[in-house]
């Protein structure tokens, strides 16, 4: 049980779930696990089953698209950020590759487990989505800025 208490504290301290109600946190802990991924290792690959999402405790993860002959990095996520929302959207498949740039420690949440609890407990469902939506909005805005090619040559 020590491990579960630890996970509860980690979830509490991570910016993503900061301030969450104790009862809901308890539900989250039931689906959570500690993970580590070594530098260069993949957390997941494009097209794979999105059966988890992650909170980064330390380290950094790059989101990549693999093309024949090269890999294009599209975003980097670091300590305090959340990785992955494909688990929320059918057919639950990863959109990008996620690779550790260094030794990275994370908390993972089992998607099937959490989706089930969210279906059963609308309060938990709302709380999780309420925290995901601003992150999605921010990343969409940031991606659009990248599209602008701010520093590129003038037309």
């Amino acid at each position, binding site marked *: 049980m020590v491990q579960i208490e630890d996970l509860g504290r980690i979830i509490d301290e991570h910016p993503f779930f900061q301030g969450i109600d104790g009862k809901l946190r308890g539900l989250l802990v039931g689906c959570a696990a500690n993970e580590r991924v070594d530098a260069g290792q993949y957390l997941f690959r494009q097209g794979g089953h999105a059966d988890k999402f992650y909170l980064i405790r330390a380290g*950094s993860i*790059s*989101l*990549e698209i693999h093309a024949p002959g*090269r*890999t*294009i*990095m*599209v*975003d*980097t996520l*670091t300590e*305090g*950020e959340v990785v992955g929302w494909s688990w929320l959207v059918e057919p639950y498949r990863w959109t990008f590759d996620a690779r550790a*740039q260094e030794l990275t420690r994370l908390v993972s949440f089992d998607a099937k487990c959490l989706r089930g609890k969210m279906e059963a407990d609308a309060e938990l469902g709302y709380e999780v989505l309420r925290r995901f939506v601003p992150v999605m909005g*921010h990343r969409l805005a*940031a991606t659009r*800025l*990248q599209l*602008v*090619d*701010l*520093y*590129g*040559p*003038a037309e």
Partner: protein
Amino acid sequence: MTALPAEPMLPSPFRIVKVVRELADTFTLVLQPEAGGAFAFRSGQFNMLYAFGAGEVPISISGDPADDGQLVHTIRSVGPVTQALGALKVGDVVGVRGPFGTPWPVEEAFGDDLVIIAGGVGLAPLRPAIYQALANRQKFGKLIIMYGARTPQDILFRKELEKWRSRFDVNVHVTVDRATGQWAGRVGVVTNVVARAGFDPLHTTALVCGPEVMMRYAVDMVEKRGVPTDKVHVSMERNMKCGLGLCGHCQWGPHFVCRDGPVFRFSEIAELFPVREL
């Protein structure tokens, strides 16, 4: 009226003593006055550089304000005059008028965390402020440099950024818009870094320089973090032809960017910033 003045539109000759190829389209000229003597300036100021027969362009000074023995300009080749400047070699002469414009208020930030946010070649006008901050390191809280570039190949002053990052008392965050797998750093816009960087918003001074769109979003994020806008400073770019508030081209609302800027306190221009085509 006052006594007859000297010719403010007449450049002084400076000889090129060093040329550094920084990036594919960006180079640095190190200059010394033909007439000898020093060139004093403040961080954030700019000069009008004249290439013989080609014309004159406003270029910010990218050297160390504590070193007035040489004048350093980092230039991106984007037009005929900057291309003419790029074709010059050590020993050639350029015309210089200046320094012009308002400085980065580095001293004003003493006691605060100093957050420097640069995009693209916008790191060049901020480098003098970084030198000044490093020379007065103990007078600040945190010193954070956040820099966004297009790709890893477009990172300006890369060696210096690496040197600064290796210090224990400076935080350097570099992010690029796109990269391939060889890049071990961050990908994403510089606003992402601003969103997460550790500084105390209520005791922070932010200096921001980059393309206007980047500055708009960066300032937005700094504001969201809770930094008061009278402690946020931006460096504006407009068409400057004289440096004296005389030719009219650089007007931005009531301001002559060459004289009242280029560095503006954000709270004083917050209303102009979002007006399109001003």
